[in-house]
Structures are given as structure tokens and as C-alpha cells.
């Protein structure tokens, strides 16, 4: 029996295929130094490749071809890059994929504009690919449109909570926010759109949504934890979530568990973040078991993801693609980057 390729190498292969297929949509134009060079920047920086891999593997697992899935993967990846550009500005992030963020390199105004262009470019592969057919193209455009809606709703929740230093949240609030902000465009949409491109039908969409929500939630909790991990955050801005007062699962747990005095200082930190408070917040999280709480949360959700997986892909023949999708579940909670 052949040993399956490690999840990371499959992710890298799909990411490379998608980057290659993306090239024609990122063709040079003018003004290059103010727009098209910026538009090409983030897509050229290798990311984890989770979105294209989920999409292309699902497309093939339901009987479609790589060729059918690639333009759809390009659309999702372009939209992801558009979100990243604007996200980095909203969060004041300084690094992205091992290099300075786009707005640090070129200024906020040009970066916002480049993000807008990337979002518009994301529509092109779905409109221009004749192999998809009109009906499927329109269904995919609806999916992309709904993804923008969910993601912006989730981002609005997170930004609003930060703006008003909202406390008194619980794990269910966090799940609701992450489902919208992260899950939809990271896991749910790639799974649904991959199945749509591969089978030309939305028959599995509800079950795929449920699987994607579990998978995306496990991914986000792990992402929150990795922000606090020195090695893993090497290509990111370590402790950025603490500095920005992001409502991670650990912070929500800490706010609920900490003593009134610490809680008051935390609220102060959320209202007017002070540099240098990260070590204190991290120490407090350790003392209150907030990191262990988050790890347990991810473990519980990923265990439930197996049931959702079985439901989503019921009746399909075993294949390397299905096997890969199953192996993505533990990867989401064990990954180091």
C-alpha cells in the first residue's frame, strides 16, 4: 500500500497549482507601481494553501477534475488575498507571510485600493471560465457573494467588540463570530464550491457547511494559540492578538475567570492597548488555564468534525482526495504554522 503524502506537502502542491493558474488574472498593467505590483504581492507570498487544497480535493472527491476546480480555487484565493490586505489595515498588522504588510510597504490608501482590485479580480475566473457553464458559474458567484456577506458580518462583530471593549462574552459568542469571520471563507466556501464545481450540483451543501464549520473553528482556535507560540509565529507578528485586544477564545475565557482587579486592568487594556502588557496577559492566561481551555475546545470540536465529515461525504468511493480531506481534521489542531 502506498503511504499517502503528508498533509503539508499536499497543501503545498495545491497552493502551487493555484498560484500558477492565478497568473493570467494578475497580468501586468498600468499603473504598475501603484496598483498591479501591489495586487501581485500577497498572492506571490506562499501561504498555507488550506483553501485551494480543500476546494480542489473536494472537487475531485465528488468526481470532478482538477481542471474544473482550478478557476474556482483561483477565485477563492484572490478573495482571500483581498481580505488579507484589508484585514491587515484593520488590525494594524506589521507582518504577513514573513514580510512587511502591504500597507506598511506602500501606505494605507494604496493598499486599500489594491485590496479592492483583488476583490473585483476574484470574480473574473468564475465569469471567464467557459467550462463551468452558465448555471454553475452563477451558482458559484452566488456562493462567493454569500461568502463576502458572512465574512464581513463576522469581521464587523469582531471589530465592533474591540471598538467598544465588549466583555461578558462566552464560548458560544466566540463560535458565532468565528463561524462568520473565519469558517465561511476558509473552509465552508472552499468545500461547497469544490463540490459544486466537481459535481455541478449543490446537493451536499448543507452537510459540507457543517463539516466546514467544525473544521474552520478548530483552525481558528489553533491560529489563536499559535499567535502566542514564539516558534510558530516567526512569520507573523507574535502576540499581535494580545496587543490588538482580539477576542480570542483564551481572552474570552480569561475575562470570565479572572479576579475583578485583573479584569478591570484587562478592560483598560482592551480600551486603550498599552505596549508591553502582552507578557502580563499571557502570564494571566497561563495561571487561569485559558490556553488549556482553548486546546481542549479545539480537541472537542475536531473530534466532532469526524462525524460531520462522514455525513458530508457519505456514499462517495474512497480516494486519495477523500483520504486527504479526512487527514486535514487532525492537521487543523496539530499544525505548527
Amino acid at each position: 500500500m502506498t503511504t499517502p503524502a503528508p498533509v503539508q506537502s499536499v497543501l503545498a502542491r495545491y497552493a502551487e497549482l493555484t498560484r500558477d493558474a492565478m497568473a493570467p488574472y494578475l497580468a501586468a498593467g498600468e499603473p504598475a507601481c501603484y496598483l498591479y505590483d501591489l495586487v501581485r504581492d500577497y498572492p506571490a507570498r506562499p501561504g498555507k494553501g488550506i483553501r485551494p487544497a480543500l476546494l480542489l480535493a473536494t472537487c475531485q472527491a465528488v468526481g470532478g477534475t482538477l481542471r474544473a476546480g482550478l478557476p474556482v480555487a483561483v477565485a477563492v484565493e484572490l478573495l482571500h488575498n483581498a481580505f488579507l490586505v484589508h484585514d491587515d489595515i484593520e488590525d494594524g498588522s506589521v507582518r504577513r507571510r514573513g514580510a512587511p504588510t502591504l500597507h506598511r510597504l506602500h501606505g494605507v490608501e494604496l493598499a486599500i485600493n489594491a485590496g479592492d482590485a483583488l476583490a473585483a479580480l476574484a470574480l473574473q475566473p468564475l465569469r471567464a471560465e467557459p467550462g463551468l457553464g452558465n448555471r454553475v458559474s452563477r451558482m458559484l458567484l452566488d456562493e462567493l457573494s454569500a461568502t463576502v456577506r458572512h465574512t464581513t458580518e463576522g469581521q464587523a462583530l469582531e471589530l465592533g467588540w474591540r471598538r467598544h471593549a465588549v466583555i461578558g462574552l462566552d464560548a458560544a459568542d466566540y463560535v458565532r463570530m468565528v463561524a462568520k469571520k473565519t469558517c465561511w471563507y476558509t473552509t465552508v466556501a472552499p468545500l461547497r464550491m469544490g463540490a459544486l464545481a466537481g459535481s455541478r450540483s449543490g446537493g451536499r451543501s448543507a452537510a459540507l457547511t457543517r463539516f466546514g464549520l467544525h473544521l474552520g473553528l478548530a483552525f481558528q482556535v489553533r491560529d489563536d494559540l499559535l499567535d502566542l507560540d514564539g516558534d510558530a509565529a516567526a512569520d507573523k507578528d507574535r502576540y499581535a492578538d494580545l496587543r490588538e485586544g482580539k477576542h480570542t477564545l483564551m481572552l474570552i475565557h480569561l475575562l470570565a475567570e479572572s479576579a475583578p482587579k485583573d479584569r478591570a486592568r484587562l478592560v483598560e487594556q482592551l480600551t486603550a492597548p498599552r505596549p508591553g502588557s502582552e507578557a502580563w496577559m499571557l502570564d494571566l492566561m497561563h495561571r487561569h488555564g485559558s490556553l488549556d481551555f482553548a486546546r481542549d475546545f479545539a480537541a472537542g470540536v475536531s473530534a466532532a468534525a469526524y462525524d460531520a465529515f462522514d455525513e458530508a461525504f457519505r456514499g462517495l468511493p474512497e480516494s486519495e482526495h477523500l483520504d486527504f480531506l479526512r487527514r486535514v481534521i487532525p492537521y487543523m489542531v496539530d499544525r505548527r504554522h
Partner: protein
Amino acid sequence: MTERPGLTDRQRAAARTAAEVFDSLAEPPAAPFPRDGDDGPRAGVAAAVGLFSDVVQRIVDGYAELAERAGTVASNGSSGAAGEPITLYGRPGETAAVDVWIHNMGSLPISAMRLHLSALTAADGTEPAAGPASFEPPEPSVGAASSTRAVLALLIADDCAPGIYHGYVLGSGEIEAALPLHLVVEP
């Protein structure tokens, strides 16, 4: 939800919390953004017209999809089912040839379909010393509910390594099709 063994109480509680929230998130509407419901009679008429045009569009698309699926490229003697590979046999120095059938089961004629042979590779990534490929006729047309064929010819060079090479016959024009092809170079 199945209660998985081996989980701690806290892990089980996490799974339950997630499941409850996910249950509350009903299947989203396909419509992009919510709209104010008080749009007046003009909007109602526009919505009705839009719905009607969508129904018409879907009917047209349905026929187009059928035509897309009906127009398939197939090798000689095959049933025409998508995915069945064309097999091309030959020895180094020979010109291998095979019939490629185009079955149009749709109700519209297909004119001037352009046929191409994709790049070929063996399982280990090597490419055969072969080519160029030609199709005769180069741009076949096929009437509604009928079939036609084109002959694919490929020159295998003297120094081509024996083995099986994989690629596709691609058809483009009013319909698009891709059929797997095996080139078997015999020693």
C-alpha cells in the same frame, strides 16, 4: 451528534457548544445581502420580472448543459462515455494513428470544433520524443444528433523511450471536451 469516547467533559462540552451554535446558523440564503422589505409595487413587479427571466434563463441553461454533456469526444469503438481513454499504439520511428469520434447527442449542430493533443507525460514525468500531432479533418463539424470522426496521427521519433504516456485530446469551440489519451510506445 455521536458522543466520542476518550473525550474529557470539557472537550465534550466544547463540541456541544459548537453544535448548538451551528444548529442555530440555518442554511444561508444564496442572496448576497439583506434588503429592506418595503420596496413598494415597482420593486414587486421588478422582482416578478426578474424571477420570470431567471426561470427562462435556467431553462435555456438547462438545454445548454444538456448540449454540453451530449457533445462528447470518444475513441474508435468506445461507447463515448467520458473518461474512457483513447489508446494510441506505435513503435519508435512509426506514425501512430487512431480514430477520434465526436458524438453530438444534442439538438444543435456543432461547427468547426478545434481538436488539440495536450502535452504527454509518463508516470515518472518524462515526455515522449513524439510529435507534432495532427487531426484530419483539423476542425470537424457534426450535425445535430449525429457523429463524425477525425483521425489523430502522431509521429513517434526514433529515440522515443518505450512506455505509456498520458495526455488529453481537447476539443474547443461551441462545446468543450477533454478525453484522456494513452500513448503506448512499444519496444
